[in-house]
């Protein structure tokens, strides 16, 4: 099980690989669409990569609820628990 900080760092790496955004810009309070300008296609790629990296399932219907980076980190932490 990874800590919140570890999940955030891992997610930031995935976002960086997909979009080129600096890992430092991927903060808990950032909105994927509003702040990070991530479109739905990139979001699905990030979700699938995150499933592999953190060994969790993120159902498609759940993805729309992951509005901020923090939402995703918390969901992954809960799913790992």
């Amino acid at each position, binding site marked *: 099980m990874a800590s919140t900080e570890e999940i955030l760092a891992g997610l930031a790496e995935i976002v960086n690989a997909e979009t080129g955004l600096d890992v430092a810009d991927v903060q808990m309070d950032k909105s994927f669409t509003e702040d990070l300008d991530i479109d739905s296609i990139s979001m699905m*790629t990030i979700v*699938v990569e995150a499933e592999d990296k953190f060994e969790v399932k993120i159902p498609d219907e759940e993805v729309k609820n992951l509005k901020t980076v923090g939402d995703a980190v918390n969901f992954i932490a809960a799913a790992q628990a």
Partner: protein
Amino acid sequence: MMARKVVITGLGATTPIGGDVPTLWENALKGVSGAATLTDSWVEEYHLPVTFAARASVPATDVLSRVEAKRMDPSTQFAVVAAREAWKDSGIEEVDRNKLAVAFATGIGGVWTLLDAWDTLREKGPRRVLPMTVPMLMPNGPAAAVSLDLGAAAGAHTPVSACASGTEAMHVGMELIRAGKADVVVVGGAEAAIHPMPIAAFSSMQALSRSNDNPQGASRPYDIDRNGFVMGEGAGALVLEAEEHALARGARIYAELAGTSVTADAYHITAPDPQGLGATRALKAAMFDGLIQPEDVVHVNAHATSTPVGDKPEYTALKAALGDHLDNVWVSATKSQMGHLLGASGAVESVLTTLAIYHRLAPVTINLDNQDPEIPLKVVTGEPAKLPAEGSIVALNNSFGFGGHNAVVAIRSV
């Protein structure tokens, strides 16, 4: 009313003998081979009968950013690299985006993406198939990416006619400008099919050279020992512009795109008409379109793929279109150097034909050791051929494709 005159003001290319136009031109004059033994593990894994190809000399991933490249099939990566070079070369700073169009061809499209996605589906299941799969594999991907990159809003077209595609894109661009639908069109062709499946498929139809022990000598158009083509990859791009638009901005004009034409053999799905009738009609139509007499023609960049059955009908067609004047015409078979770029070949060869007119110098054909006596063309070998230094000169570029597609462009000095 006279048709609008169309001129060529920008050139771009990424090929097996040069990752940009200056390098391509330097090597085309020198005479080098871009073919080499493939080092990919899949060559042995699938026991491919052909173990070499002509890869792009500069990988597109070295030029594009990682994130850009990730969202593009290799064919689209090549297209964007070549189109950016052509656009920069044109010097256009401002343009009405509603009068800027794209005609970017491919023969096969996103074959790497398609087959990678199929592998992923079988090995990992549907959820692991990338969401970008469809836009990456679609054959209009290169045209769409170039349109997006340049903000070209007057339309993005994708002529698909196998190995005639790149030259057909020139024809489409010409028509768009003549019809007043665009003032500037970025035309080109892209291909990235050096993948085990297309190699196996082209091999099984006996189209590829199997000179595995001599990759650099394998592509030998017009040679008596030619035994098939060599697969190449890359892209070529040209900026076509209405003459008045180019003159108004004081553009450097390489040449005039004087005439274009497209015909179909309606003879056989893969074999060329042995009489070359469709090709002859295409040659004559392009010359008619550009008000060109046989005596005006000084150079031909031939389709000349190095297959036993393909090279001769092209000679027959040239003879029918140009008559005895053909004896005076310098012919270059540049696939001897860079292999066959399939849907990109016509675009890259149009770049070379434009430069041949601009510099009045025809590039060399390599590997022509024993010219087939049935193809008595005046082929440029050894040294580049000097074209007439004075007066108006014309060069033709031929491309033919499976399906019986024939496309010809005529390029004139300005």
